[in-house]
């Protein structure tokens, strides 16, 4: 009996130690395997809370801790800034250009280059565009289906700004949070989705 207890205690102790050891090995491997190139500095390997949480395959399979997920979402929600000029809807034509371009933020891009949103990489948006991805949901008729209420407008802004405020492991990049898009670009993408005159809502 006593032996059994000892073995159990040893196993319990060994497990976290083993995983800490594996973590240290992993961290060293990552540090030794990457190098800064252009604007893509080695610092980009540092994870924030959401990235860390969503790097666990068990979490991605739906076995995460809901309380932890909720607290990370809350922190992301709290960091969202609403547009400084109070305007949410820009120019849908400019928004279409942002949605089409998948450029930006790689080591072959310049620091002052204009980023794209790459929206079509993952979403269907305008029916006229046949080359669209399917990682995200279809956004065709986005405003027509959801309406143009203040709630919908704010929700859409927040989603573009920081999708992880709603779904901690959303695959969508946090365009406002990481300054991938400017406020004006986000307003233009908003128009593409929410201007009743945008081809998306015809």
């Amino acid at each position, binding site marked *: 009996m006593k032996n059994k207890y000892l073995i159990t205690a040893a196993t319990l102790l060994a497990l976290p130690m083993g995983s800490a050891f594996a973590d240290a090995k992993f961290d060293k491997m990552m540090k030794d395997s990457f*190098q800064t190139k252009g604007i893509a500095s080695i610092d*980009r390997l540092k994870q924030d809370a959401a990235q860390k949480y969503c790097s666990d395959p068990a979490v991605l399979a739906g076995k995460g801790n809901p309380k932890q997920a909720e607290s990370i979402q809350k922190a992301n929600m709290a960091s969202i800034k609403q547009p400084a000029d109070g305007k949410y809807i820009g120019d849908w034509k400019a928004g279409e250009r942002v949605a089409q371009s998948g450029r930006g933020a*790689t080591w072959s891009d310049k620091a002052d280059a204009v980023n794209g949103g790459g929206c079509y*990489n993952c979403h269907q948006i305008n029916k006229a565009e046949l080359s669209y991805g399917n990682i995200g949901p279809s956004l065709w008729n986005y405003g027509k289906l959801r309406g143009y209420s203040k709630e919908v407008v704010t929700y859409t802004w927040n989603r573009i700004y920081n999708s992880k405020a709603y779904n901690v492991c959303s695959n969508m990049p946090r365009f406002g949070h990481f300054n991938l898009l400017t406020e004006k670009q986000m307003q233009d993408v908003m128009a593409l989705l929410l201007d009743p005159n945008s081809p998306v809502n015809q």
Partner: protein
Amino acid sequence: MRQHWTRGALFVSSLFVLQACTTPEPPKKAAAPAPAPQAAAAAPAGAPTAEIEKYRAMIADGNPSDLYEMAGEELWKKAMGPKNATLEKCDLGLGPGVVKGVYAVLPKYFKDTNKVQDLESRIVTCMERLQGFDAKEIIAGNFGQGKRKDVEAIVAYVVANSKGSTINVSVKHPKEKEMYELGKKSFFYQAGPMDFSCASCHADPGKRIRLQDLPDLTQQKGAALGWGAWPAYRVSSGTFWTMQYRLNDCYRQQRFPEPIYISDDTIAVSMYMAVTANGGKMAAPGLKR
């Protein structure tokens, strides 16, 4: 010239259009039309993906990887470097000089380096130890240039000799098991300004970026397709891409810093993909958009 063509050759004549400049005389024994890749049947006719498949089938009979393979075979057999030696005694995993089928068992643990190595890191080891080249120079270099260009051609030669082999990568050695686990962890590691990991795009079946299909590399079927088709000739860039090159560009698009050539992470991720692909068939060098 046309009167020499058999009916079969006439039938597939369109397939040779792209080869015309390198093929002065069409083969008398007209090859049967290249079998269309499996995916062609899956895509509805007229759909843009079907058009891409048609294009692939059209040029599949003349994969420019052939040229890299021939150059690689020459490099393998040519005495070179400060030690003026060939690579014919290089042990890639199935014994010194064995090329046939070896890519299907890589990456694997090598006793002499006490490391798990992929094909490219192993070739660099052989160039260093047998021929006396400086591995650091190759690692600090660029794709398609200098000695790394030679490595790429040798890769094409070695890989082509595993076409049709069953992928059979071992995790028996503790270091192989460890490399697999590190690779799996890296595959799911989210970071950078877009929060991407390999899994963001490659952990669900049936996903696409624009019109580009994304294999689910966490499942055997997808991994066998993905791992089994690389290295490949990239039509869009007009160059042969090794697995290291493929991973380098994945990380670029992931907005990560640059992976160092043949670094442990690149080998670990390769190990994860290869082990997941076990049981599938090697179809490389492939032909990609």
